[in-house]
């Protein structure tokens, strides 16, 4: 296929058919010089800012495989000794504690959150508006102002251990999760529910077979929020868990800094391992989010 070359640039290109009747492409619209220069400047500035964020990550990667790691970014003496060291003994145990803490907290918050969000979305509740506002505001209350009174309560009832702390963490992520899930359930058309109700489906059946599958992206987003909230929480387990053997990974990570000699390689390796579950979670849910709502084809108009 030949490209049409415009011989008189002052005039608009002729778009009429070629001799054999097939349509002809008009000339390509290339960027002008000034737009090219502008995009070069923009990209340089953005690249510079990006570098600031990449530097610590780079240190983390390099130091984790360096048997002589320091605080600077340097070419490593390759070795997996750091990983071997942090994946044994009490450090590994702390990671397991973190998993238990986060999983229990996520499960409780998600299940309770779905029921609450569904009720707020579909049922007539007196003072619903003010209640929802209260929930939204309470998601912004700083944990640090609650943790001392909660400590008093936990201490009195002998709750200063892993499981009660998981429950408390689930409660702290609940307000935001309820709000998030409610908005997603709101977006599920009421027709689905009415159709199911006309088939004699119970509320539980409607939730399990219709609402939850359709609001899944929102529920997953809320669950991930809850997981990350519990996984990364530092001050709450530090105060509420009395036994050292039940402390989760963030506290273990902190104890590295309290040792007489700071092992930078171990810190980097432990930090990387600590990141893995969150990475896996985001990667696994990416498909779910990309698909977004699966409402297409169900209702129209």
């Amino acid at each position, binding site marked *: 296929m030949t490209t049409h070359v415009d011989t008189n640039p002052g005039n608009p290109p002729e778009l009429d058919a070629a001799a054999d009747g097939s349509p002809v492409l008009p000339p390509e619209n290339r960027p002008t010089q000034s737009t090219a220069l502008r995009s070069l400047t923009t990209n340089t500035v953005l690249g510079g800012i990006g570098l600031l964020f990449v530097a610590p990550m780079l240190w983390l990667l390099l130091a984790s495989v360096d048997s002589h790691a320091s605080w600077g970014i340097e070419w490593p003496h390759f070795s997996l000794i750091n990983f071997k060291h942090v994946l044994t003994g009490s450090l590994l145990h702390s990671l397991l504690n973190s998993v238990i803490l986060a999983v229990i907290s996520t499960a409780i918050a998600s299940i309770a959150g779905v029921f609450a969000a569904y009720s707020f979305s579909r049922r007539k509740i007196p003072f619903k508006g003010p209640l929802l506002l209260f929930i939204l505001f309470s998601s912004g209350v700083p944990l640090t102002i609650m943790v001392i009174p909660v400590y008093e309560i936990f201490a009195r009832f002998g709750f200063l251990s892993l499981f009660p702390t998981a429950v408390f963490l689930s409660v702290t992520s609940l307000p935001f999760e309820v709000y998030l899930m409610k908005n997603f359930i709101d977006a599920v058309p009421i027709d689905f529910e009415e159709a199911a109700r*006309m088939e004699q489906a119970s509320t539980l059946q409607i939730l399990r077979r219709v609402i939850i599958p359709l609001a899944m992206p929102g529920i997953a987003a809320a669950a991930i929020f809850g997981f990350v909230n519990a996984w990364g929480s530092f001050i709450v387990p530090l105060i509420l868990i009395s036994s050292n053997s039940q402390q989760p990974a963030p506290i273990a990570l902190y104890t590295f800094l309290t040792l007489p000699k700071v092992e930078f390689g171990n810190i980097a390796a432990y930090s990387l391992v600590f990141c893995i579950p969150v990475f896996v979670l985001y990667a696994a849910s990416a498909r779910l989010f990309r698909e977004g709502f699966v409402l297409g084809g*169900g*209702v129209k108009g």
Partner: protein
Amino acid sequence: MRFDHVWKLFEGNAVVSDLDLKIREGEFLVLVGPSGCGKTTSLRMLAGLERPSHGRIWMGDKDVTDLPTGQRDVSMVFQSYALYPNMSVKKNLAFGPKVRKEPKKDLDRRINEVADLLGIRQLLNRSPSALSGGQRQRVALGRALIREPQVFLMDEPLSNLDAALRVQMRAELIRLHNRLENTTTVYVTHDQVEALTMGDRVAVLKDGVLLQVDSANDLYEYPESVFVGEFIGSPKMNVQPGSLNTSGGVANIECLGVRTTLSPEITGRIEATPSGGSVLVGIRPHDLHLAGESGPESERVQGLIDIVEHTGTEVFATIDVGDAKVIARLPRTPLPVRGQKVELAFNADRVLLFDVESRKSLLRRDSEREKVSIR
């Protein structure tokens, strides 16, 4: 099935007022009216999705007003279809039987039967998003059918389809209704053509009030009010002020500057002549035509064509007659053009007369016809 003086109030506003309507077993009843007339609300009350504020709903000799939805023997096809997008067509069809814990062993057979009936057998494993509008419509019907209910409720099921498909599905729905003996269908639409073509009887609602329930033909021939006259039939009926005077068994009307004597058939049906003789005269566009060469001068009127609308088979023109605008059906040849002067006359045996105040019909029903419509 019966609405027994049913009212539905939303925040003090009556959406449905004193609806008293008996639905016969096995009939195809269409509820029709402009948007906001309460037709969908009425249907939802039958389905049990809304509770009437006052009045009762009966199915057979059972009061179902307080029966929760799902426990009435009805199926509903939603305007949006409401197919569960997370399930395949087959699972959509199986949803109802599954939640009702009906025996699993003949479920496959039932699904296949319904799928064959609707011609969706090859679609069973697809997801709703992979279906065309007409196919979705069929799946939604299938989901209602599989319950084998006594009553089908349909809420504007064809409104999301394109025009050609709508005509095709209209015929399919009627065929389906005829196949399922003793199944009553209540069908809501805002489209008067759909209502007239599909309904055994058509109930016209306006502002929550039931105006008239009749067969399509009777609605067209004997509208009880100006609203029904205008709503049924396309293009809209012309309604113009006129005067009527009856003396010695002869009725003369004057309308649009035309003076004419009504046929004895219509004269015999006039119930009362309002004092002063002013009336509203309804003339269908099909009964308003070009005046022929013959005929007395007093029965013609001059007009100026304003707009010409060609519908393919017919040509309608909006014509200025004095200050009034009327719509008339004109011959296709010679094709009328804008600005053309024409002479109009109307069929004196086809006019409708309405009271100016109450806007109700002044004509009694033809006694012969009435017998037919009651059956």
